[in-house]
């Protein structure tokens, strides 16, 4: 059964096709959260709008450990397509309505027609039995046709409390497909289909038609974030620059230039072809350059790599400049590739020939300010940027890339074309959920019952982007006993990763340092309460272990939080590439395979 990206529901214990599903074959409690699988993410917490593109928020993140949408539970509807007989829902009942099978409106085949049985003001609905179980997530799919004269609002609702969810069809005389996820409730409930608003529909009139109805459980411990701005964002963007292939747009500003025109190209060592922008100098006695409009917002104190393609046109000496609180130049000779003046603080200067007079120029800089500009220009000699232009000389530039140094060390392409904040190269760039360090977080839609186990494995592929404030990556319960957590960092201004486990009493914390942000790593926590141990490993190497007492008992039945404690505090500032939580210890080949699996999706080599 396909799960996307070549995964299978027939997990093998070794080899290239190993998947984390293997870790849960014995029914272990937990969760597997994978941002590389778009089928597991929805923009809203009700699961009505899937994540289909980068830079969309995740309001619902499905747990894959039991297969999610690829391993739905048995259908609670029989004859959902109405072809053999009219559809029926387990334990069904009707309210002021009768159901019959009839020719499908505006199409071949048959559909189920729910007709009003009263001319009084009343609700007209088809109810399931009391079959929607507490703590379970259900997917309800189908299509509905509401004729003129039918219900004003076709809805799905909880017939116990009357609350609507995920759907309100008001269109008339057309089939409308629907697919809705209903998140767990604390108690068993009854699905209502139709309209629980009292309204007059003539007796015998079709209130609505339903076809292809299906009601199936989506197994797993799914994560939600109802509050829109608090949702983490699905992203593959690493290059902070904009309009990187076209320096004529509003994202770039000319200084001392007569014109800018996209013309010609250069080929990067990777084979990627980069369009270039011809920048023709004006006749001013000034600097002649192009620079990004406004500022890029970076993280002060962190190291970035800036790179660009610069091609010689008329003059010999060119520069790539990085402006934070000061201006840093990398001057180079476009005839020879030799570097000239390189400002202090600009490290690893590199000038690589791309042929035909084009050069790939790059350097690193620990930025000393958040507001940064990238500038590309040329001069009459090394370190001579201001001169009287002739109105005709030119240079070509393009392929601008500005990213954290750690993002050059994760096996991704060296150049990412970025047109806009939502339109950029994705092939080869690792997908992640980005947590903003202020409000982003998710939590399980129902409590996750770990009370059968006193063992825990947490495995996460992460980039920690800040050490400024304590960040909660994952925690069971809101800072309570019988719980565990992974943090990065553990304290404000600490350079730690941390993991702790608690039984009924004391907590066993391991928080090794220094691993200053930004840092990408596979972090593993292993713990057992009864024979107390709590250990943390980074990139497959155990860093710390404690045998401190954790009290007694097993882990609890609490909500699982990621990104923030209790969806309220200690916001994690960073990315999650993979997250596996397993209510058992993991060892041997399974542990090795799991860490390799996570590492490959995090850009880490173990």
């Amino acid at each position, binding site marked *: 059964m396909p799960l996307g990206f070549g995964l299978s529901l027939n997990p093998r214990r070794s080899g290239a096709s190993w998947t984390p599903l293997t870790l849960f074959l014995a029914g272990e409690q937990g969760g597997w959260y994978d941002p590389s699988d778009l089928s597991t993410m929805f923009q809203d917490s009700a699961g009505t709008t899937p994540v289909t593109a980068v830079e969309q*928020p995740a309001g619902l993140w499905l747990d894959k450990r039991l297969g999610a949408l690829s391993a739905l539970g048995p259908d609670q509807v029989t004859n959902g397509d109405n072809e053999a007989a009219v559809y029926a829902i387990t334990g069904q009942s009707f309210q002021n309505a009768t159901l019959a099978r009839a020719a499908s409106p505006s199409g071949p085949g048959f559909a189920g027609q729910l007709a009003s049985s009263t001319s009084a003001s009343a609700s007209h609905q088809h109810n399931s039995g009391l079959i929607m179980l507490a703590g379970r997530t259900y997917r309800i799919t189908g299509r509905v046709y509401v004729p003129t004269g039918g219900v004003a609002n076709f809805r799905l609702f909880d017939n116990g409390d009357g609350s609507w969810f995920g759907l309100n069809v008001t269109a008339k005389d057309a089939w409308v497909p629907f697919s809705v996820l209903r998140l767990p409730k604390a108690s068993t409930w009854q699905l209502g289909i139709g309209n629980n608003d009292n309204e007059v529909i003539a007796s015998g009139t079709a209130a609505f038609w339903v076809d292809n109805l299906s009601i199936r459980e989506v197994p797993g411990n799914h994560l939600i974030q*109802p509050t*829109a701005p*608090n*949702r983490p964002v699905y992203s593959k963007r690493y290059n902070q620059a904009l309009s990187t292939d076209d320096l004529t747009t509003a994202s770039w500003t000319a200084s001392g230039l007569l014109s800018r025109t996209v013309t010609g190209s250069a080929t990067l060592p990777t084979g990627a072809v980069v369009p270039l922008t011809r920048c023709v100098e004006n006749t001013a006695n000034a600097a002649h350059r192009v620079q990004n409009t406004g500022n890029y*917002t970076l993280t002060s104190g962190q190291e970035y790599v800036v790179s660009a393609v610069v091609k010689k046109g008329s003059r010999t000496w060119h520069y790539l400049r990085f402006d934070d609180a000061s201006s840093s130049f990398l001057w180079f000779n476009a005839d020879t590739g030799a570097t000239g003046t390189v400002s202090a603080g600009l490290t690893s200067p590199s000038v690589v020939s791309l042929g035909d007079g084009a050069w790939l120029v790059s350097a690193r800089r620990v930025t000393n300010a958040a507001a940064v500009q990238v500038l590309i220009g040329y001069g009459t000699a090394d370190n001579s940027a201001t001169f009287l232009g002739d109105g005709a000389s030119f240079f070509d530039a393009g392929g601008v890339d500005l990213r954290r140094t750690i993002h050059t060390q994760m096996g991704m392409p060296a150049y990412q074309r970025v047109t806009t904040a939502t339109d950029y190269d994705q092939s080869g760039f690792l997908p992640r959920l980005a947590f903003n360090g202020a*409000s982003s977080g998710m939590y399980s839609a129902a409590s996750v019952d770990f009370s059968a186990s006193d063992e825990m494995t947490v495995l996460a592929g992460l980039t920690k982007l800040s050490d400024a404030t304590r960040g909660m990556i994952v925690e069971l319960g809101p800072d309570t006993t019988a719980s565990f957590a992974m943090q990065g960092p553990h304290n*404000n201004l600490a350079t730690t990763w941390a993991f702790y486990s608690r039984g009924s009493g004391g907590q066993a914390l391991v928080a090794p340092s220094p691993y200053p942000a930004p840092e990408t790593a596979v972090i593993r926590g292993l713990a057992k309460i009864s024979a107390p141990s709590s250990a943390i490993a980074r990139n497959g190497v155990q860093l710390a272990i404690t045998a401190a007492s954790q009290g007694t008992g097993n882990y609890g039945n609490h909500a699982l939080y990621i990104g923030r404690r209790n969806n309220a505090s200690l916001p994690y500032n960073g990315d999650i590439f993979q997250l596996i939580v397993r209510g058992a210890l993991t060892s041997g080949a399974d542990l090795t395979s799991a860490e390799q699996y996570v590492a490959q999706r995090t850009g880490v080599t173990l």
Partner: protein
Amino acid sequence: MSAWVHRTMIVPQAFRSLAQQLCAGLAGLSGTGMFDVDLGTTPSGPTTHGMSTGLIQPQFAGLMPLDKWDADAGAYTRLDPGQATAIVAGAAAVGVTLPLATVQALLAAVRVADEPWQQAQQQQGLHMVQSGEGMP
């Protein structure tokens, strides 16, 4: 859902509860729980402002003001005053009656910009108030 837009929204404490109620009323579940980040003039508090930051729906953003930081002036410029009348009408539609002047005062007090929260805080001289939560 059409393209989302990023906003960092900071409201003085005196208007925080009103802003939270309005967002919940106008946006429903997706607006419930906004402005839940405490800000103050020092990391140790006290809390003087509440913040929301992240992606919101464009129709919701369209109701709110929009500000832009002018680096040369060292101050924000208001690009869009927001839709006070529409907010009052929207609130009324969900059963909340508000004087127009109250909403206008809220919109005058809130700072809404398409910028990262770190930048917004720095420009407004604010810090995230640390929770002070103990070990672990």
